[in-house]
Each structure stands twice: as C-alpha cells, then as structure tokens.
C-alpha cells in the first residue's frame, strides 16, 4: 500500500511538473498549443526626406517605445554614409543620423517589424504624470475657454466623461462662437491636440499627446495620428481626439508619447516623413522561439532550440519515440495484442514515417516475405545460429538493394525509401518469424506479424499527427506527462481486451451452469 501511495505521489509530481512547464511556456512565453496558430507581423517603414544645405546634418527621429505586449523583431536603420546612433533619453528612444556635410535631397529609412502578443494583458502606462502646466492664454481666449469648460463640466460626472464631453464639444458640427474662437479657422491636428491638453490642464487634469500609427496592410504615405492620453484614477487612458472614444484601437502602434518633436532636422529643410506598412503572416511558434532566444529566457537557453538545426531535426524524431512507446504499452497491456519483439513496432513506425504508410507496408511485407522464403532455404544448409542471422542480414540488404534498383528502373521513386528500414531489426524479425513458423505454425506467425504491423501502423498514425508532432517537439516536457501515464498503466491489473475473448467460453459455461 505504501509503495502504491509513493508511486501515485511520484506520478502526481511528474505530471504536475510536465503540465506546469507546458503552462509556463504557453502563458508566460507565449508558445501556442496548436501548430496552426499564426500571427500578423507588421513591417513598418518610415522614410525621412529632406534637402540638405551643405552644412553638418543631424537628423533626430523619435522611435516607438518598447512595451510589454508588443515584440520588436527587427529594427533597421538604413541611410548611406550617415553616422548613426540610438539615444535613450527619459523622454523616449530616438534615432540620430549625422553627417559632416551633405547637400541636395537626402533620404534615410527606419524599418521595424513588430507583432503583438495576444496572451498578455495590455498594461496601460502607469508612470506618474507631471503637474499639469497651466497654459498662458490671452484674455479673450481664456474667457472662451472658461465658458466652454464650465459648460462641459456641468454636463459631465467625472474626469473620464469630462474628457469625452470636451472632445465631443470641440468636434461638433455646429460650433458655438467660443469653440470657433478656440479652434481657429485652419486648425491642424496638432493644434487641436495641444488645445485639448491645454484645456484639460486648466481643469487640473494631466494629459499628454500620443502619436501613433494605424496598421493596415499595403498602406503607403501614411502619417501618424494624434491621440490624447489622460491620467485618470492612477493610469493613463487613451482618447481619440476626433470621436472621444476611449481605449487603444485595434492594430494601432503607439509611436511617441509626450510633446517632443517627432522629427528634428538640423542643417536641412523641407523635411518630410511618411510611413508605409506591410503585413506578413508568420507561425506564432517561430516568432516566439526567436523572441525567447533573443531575450535569453532561461528555459530556452537549455532547450532543444539551442542545438544546431541538424540535431534539432534528429530530436524531432527522437521525441516522437515516447508516443510510440505509449502506444505499445496500451496495445500490450490494455488490448493484449501480441507483437514479435516488444519495441520492434516503434522502429517499423519510424521507418514508415520516412517511407509513407502504404509504400512502407508494401516494402515491409515484400522484404519479410522474401526473407522468409530465403531463410527456409538457409535452414536446410545446417548453419550455426549466429552465422545464419548474419546471412539473413546480408540477404535483407540484397533484397533492399534489388527493390531500390528495380523500382528505380520502373520509375517508382517511393520504393527507394526502403533504406530507411532498420536492417538488423528486419533480419531479426525474419529469423524469429521463421522459427515461429517451424515451431508453432503459420497461424502464430500471422498473429504476431499482424499484431506488430497493426501496432506499428497505429503508432505511425499518432506519430505523424501534426499536432502531436508539434507538441512533442515544442513542449518536450509533455514527455513527463507521457511518463506519468505509462507509470499509471504499469499499475493496471484488470483484464486485457484479448482476455475477454480468451475467457469468453468460461462465461457462457458459468451462465448455463447457474441456470
């Protein structure tokens, strides 16, 4: 009883560890559980054009801030003959290109690939705001502003509704006199943003400008859109300054926060900036592996991904073996199928993976059948056992070579994959089957041979399942769960399915005996 309890504790621990690690990789590192999980990766190109005057040139360009929920895969800064550095002042990252002399039209590029993590809740900015700076309006505008704010205040309940109401009032189609005065005739987006921030400041509400980019596939010559971020209840809320809606729109990349300039060009004029956007679809798994490797996550550093690609491919195969082992355990302990050689079916299944199912089965039957014929002749030659097995190995190789050559001549490329079958295993199978035939007759040969092949085919079907293949390779810790299952199955003392057949005459007899 004590041993049983200990086993169950062990099983529980192993399974917990396996599932725990899987959960960690899924939720913390973002590994998807399905191979079909895809993500859109946005490639954004910012093109900066200006005309240089022949003097030293410094171009300073605001870069998007790094955030929890977005992953920057790649950043490129391309511009011929310019010195480049990336600056990180507290107000936000900036790229700086510099050159001693330049004249004529100049172009620099900044390219960025990003994707959004979907399983991490987007934490809003919670950095503390500075005390709102009261703007200095002239008397007329100040009166208009005060009147407007009074109206808005009376129609709102809290800071959030106040902000929304203010934006709505400013955007109304039939502006009152006060609004027209405040907004000016030819007001730009920037002007409006500043106005909102200033008006909020009069109300002692901290707010700041946010510039961002709507991500849409195939767009060119885009510019940044202005938003207002307001500090409410300990966090920053984003408001659309044209509609008053709050919250970050979908597919929107925040490029810059605060009132710093987006682009400064010293020694140039007519500076212009335009963005173009392209969307690509990538499997999430590749993105996550790349990101985790870049971030040197501990669990990744000691994972299979740190191996060279060739070894990784080998492991892709090896990690499928436990699935085959589980199938064999189920087939033997629960179903009760007899196989020739305990784990021979797994090796056959591995060969089937290389050859595809039908071709593989045909090849297997051909090789073993021919082998049995030749082996029956060898048994008449009166050879010592080891010599006979070795002879069978050579026979198997000869059969394989002939299958390859003949199929090549016939133009059947599939049959060339015969080489993937493990030769020694085939030779042993032939030898064992042949002895079985002599001692127990052909029936037993078909039972055991058929059992082995059936087990191999089922193992093959599981091992080639896309999802299983994906999970075993990307979540090797699931092997622990598999191990736990095998440990539990090792405790199974009930009947095997085949025994229900084996003992079925007993049941009938006992039932009739009771009548």
């Amino acid at each position: 009883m004590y041993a049983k309890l200990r086993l169950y504790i062990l099983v529980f621990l192993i399974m917990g560890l396996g599932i725990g690690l899987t959960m960690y990789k899924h939720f913390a590192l973002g590994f998807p559980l399905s191979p079909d999980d895809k993500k859109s990766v946005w490639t954004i190109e910012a093109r900066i054009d200006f005309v240089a005057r022949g003097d030293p040139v410094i171009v300073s360009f605001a870069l998007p801030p790094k955030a929890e929920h977005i992953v920057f895969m790649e950043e490129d800064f391309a511009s011929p003959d310019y010195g480049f550095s990336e600056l990180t002042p507290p107000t936000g990252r900036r790229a700086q290109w510099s050159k001693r002399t330049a004249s004529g039209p100049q172009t620099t590029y900044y390219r960025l690939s990003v994707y959004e993590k979907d399983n991490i809740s987007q934490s809003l900015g919670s950095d503390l705001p500075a005390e709102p700076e009261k703007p200095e309006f002239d008397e007329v505008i100040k009166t208009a502003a005060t009147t407007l704010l009074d109206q808005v205040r009376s129609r709102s309940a809290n800071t959030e509704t106040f902000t929304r109401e203010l934006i709505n009032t400013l955007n109304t189609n039939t502006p009152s006199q006060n609004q027209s005065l405040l907004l000016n005739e030819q007001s730009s987006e920037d002007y409006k943003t500043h106005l909102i921030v200033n008006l909020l400041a009069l109300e002692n509400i901290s707010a700041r400008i946010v510039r961002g980019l709507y991500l849409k596939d195939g767009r060119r010559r885009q510019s940044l859109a202005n938003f207002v971020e307001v500090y409410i209840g300990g966090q920053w809320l984003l408001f659309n300054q044209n509609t008053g809606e709050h919250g970050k729109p979908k597919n929107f990349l925040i490029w810059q926060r605060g009132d710093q300039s987006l682009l400064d060009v010293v020694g140039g004029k007519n500076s212009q900036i335009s963005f173009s956007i392209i969307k690509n679809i990538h499997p999430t798994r590749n993105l996550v592996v790349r990101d985790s490797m870049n971030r040197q996550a501990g669990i990744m550093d000691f994972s299979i991904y740190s191996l060279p690609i060739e070894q990784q491919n080998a492991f892709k195969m090896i990690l499928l073996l436990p699935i085959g082992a589980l199938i064999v355990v189920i087939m033997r302990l629960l179903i009760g199928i007899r196989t020739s050689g305990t784990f021979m079916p797994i090796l056959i299944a591995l060969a089937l993976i290389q050859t595809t199912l039908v071709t593989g089965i045909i090849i297997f039957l051909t090789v073993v059948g021919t082998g049995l014929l030749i082996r029956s002749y060898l048994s008449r030659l009166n050879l010592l056992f080891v010599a006979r097995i070795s002879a069978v190995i050579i026979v198997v190789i000869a059969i394989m070579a002939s299958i390859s050559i003949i199929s090549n001549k016939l133009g059947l490329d599939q049959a060339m994959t015969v080489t993937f079958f493990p030769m020694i295993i085939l030779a042993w199978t032939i030898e064992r089957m042949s002895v079985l035939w002599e001692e127990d007759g052909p029936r037993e040969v078909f039972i055991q041979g058929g059992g082995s092949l059936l087990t191999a085919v089922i193992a093959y079907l599981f091992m080639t399942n896309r999802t299983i293949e994906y999970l075993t390779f990307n979540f090797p810790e699931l092997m622990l769960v598999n191990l736990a299952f095998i440990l539990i199955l090792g405790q199974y003392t009930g009947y095997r399915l085949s025994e229900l057949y084996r003992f079925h005459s007993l049941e009938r007899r006992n039932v009739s005996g009771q009548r």
Partner: protein
Amino acid sequence: MFLASAKKLRSFGIIGMNQRNFGLISRYNPRHLYPLVDNKLKTKLLAQQAGITVPKLLGTMEYQHDVKSLKEILRPHAQFVIKPVKGSGGKGILVITEHDHNRYVKPSGDAIQLADIERHVSNILSGLHSLGGKPDMVMIESLIQLDPVFADFSYEGIPDLRIIVLKGYPIMAMLRLTTHASDGKANLHQGAVGVGIDMGTGRALHAVQYGAPVSYHPDTRKTFSDLVVPHWDKLLRLAAACYEMTGLGYLGVDIVLDRDQGPMIIELNARPGLSIQVANFAGLAPRVAAIEALKNIEPDPQLRVIFSQQQFSAEPGRYPPRQLRTRSTDSPKIIT
C-alpha cells in the same frame, strides 16, 4: 457474443495477465530465484537432492564442438528426449522414440537423420530457444514411458499434469493431453486438450481444446468422465514440496506419470500461464484469496495438501468438517 464482460469475469474470479504479472509473479517470486526453475539442470539437481524422482539425465552439451560427440552419447539409447536447458514453453524439445543407424523416429512416425539432430542441438546451443536468446546448454534425458492409465487419453505423446502451487499450497490442477493436432506436445495453444482436475479427488472436471469445451478426446474418442488421476495425494504432495525446494511462492509444477518409476517432476515454471482457469472453468482469484488469508504457512507439505483438498474440492462432502478438526489438533504434535 465474442467478448465476455469484464464484470462477469471478475465475479468468477478469473485472473488476467496483468493481474498475474503484478499480483502473483512479482509479489511471490523473487527475481534471484528464477534461475532455479529457468535452468532445467539446476531444477533437476535440486529435485534429486530433495529426493524427488526426475527423468534420468543421459548427457549434457555446452559447446558447439560437443556436437560431434552426439552420436556417441545417443548410441546406447533407443529412446531419448533432447531439451534446451533454458527453454521455455516446451520450445525446442525433440523426442525420439526409436533409432537404428542413421534413422531417428519421432513420435509422429517421421524419421530424421543424425545431421538434423545435430543442427537442432547446435541451434539450442546458440540460444535459439532460450529466454532472451542467451547461449544455452543441451540436456538429453531418458524418455518417459506412458502410464497405461493415460493410454486412452493421449495420442503420440505423454500427458503431463500442471499443478499451480501458491505459497506451498496446491490450488489448481490441469491435465494436458497430447493430441494429433498438438503434434504430440502437451501445449494447449498448439491444440492439446486441457482437463481441469478436481483438487479433492483427482477426478476430471471439464475439458477444453482451443478454448472450447470437449467431452471426449478428439483422437481416442474416450470420454473424460472416466478419467481419474491415480496417486492423486502423492502427486499433490510432490507439487507442494516444490515450494520448500525453490522458495518460489507462485509456481507451476509439471508432473508426469512414468509407467515404471511413478510420478516425476519434469519442469517447474515461475510464470505459469492462465489457461488452467479455462480448463477448470474456475478462476484462480478466490483460491489465491483463501491462501492469502492464511496467517501462517504450514511447514509440512502433507498438511498443506490436506488443507487444499478440503478447501478446493469440487465435492466438499468428501471431506467432512471433522477432518479439519483433526488437522488442527494433529499439527502441534507434528511440529513438536
């Protein structure tokens, strides 16, 4: 209905393979004792030390070059059996019933030559029939003579009696009768008939061939209702004594009756199969439970046999309760 319901089988007390491996073999049979029964030479020596009759050993061979001396060893014996020392399940056993010059006749009447026997011996030595394919030895034994009691119930071979012994108590028995289909071998899945034997009397209870009930021998047409195993008490005592001999708690004892020398132990098995349940139309589980419920094991095989006969008899009336009382009052005297 091709499948029995697991619930019903359980209610009959049928033990399955998993249960056997887990609850009986690995619980009662310590691994280090296996060689005693897996190696038939060791078993034979052990049995001889214990004073149990075994078939006479005519010769052994260990190396391939010994094969040359095979002819010399075989020359004086008209009948003999060649066995792999570490064989299992009756594999690799060659029986010769008569020979002259280079003609060796098998029970089926087929004749083979010395070269064939030499190849067979060489195969055994290479480990073809041994567990795990390890190099093996060959032993040559005298042939057992068919006891006339079984003459009507066997065809081209010697029937053998399989008794399951748990912790020294015989709990179930089955007679395996050779048939034409089984090629003279007492192997159930090759077509031998399994006859369940009543523990109390040695009388035949039921018989099966290929898992289906039969009421008479397929070749000799004799009905099994007449069949009674002679010397039944002695056979059970022999089987029970094997517990002390080997130390194995779950044991299959194979006994044959020789016309001249009486009961002999030919083989012990540490992993006896489960077909015995089919032959008896009864499950092992209730009997195992009865033995496991015992607080201590009787040291005297004789008393264990009496307990088993009383406990597991199909005709309980034959052993009145008085006998039980006698046993319990007798036992202290025997111990002291």
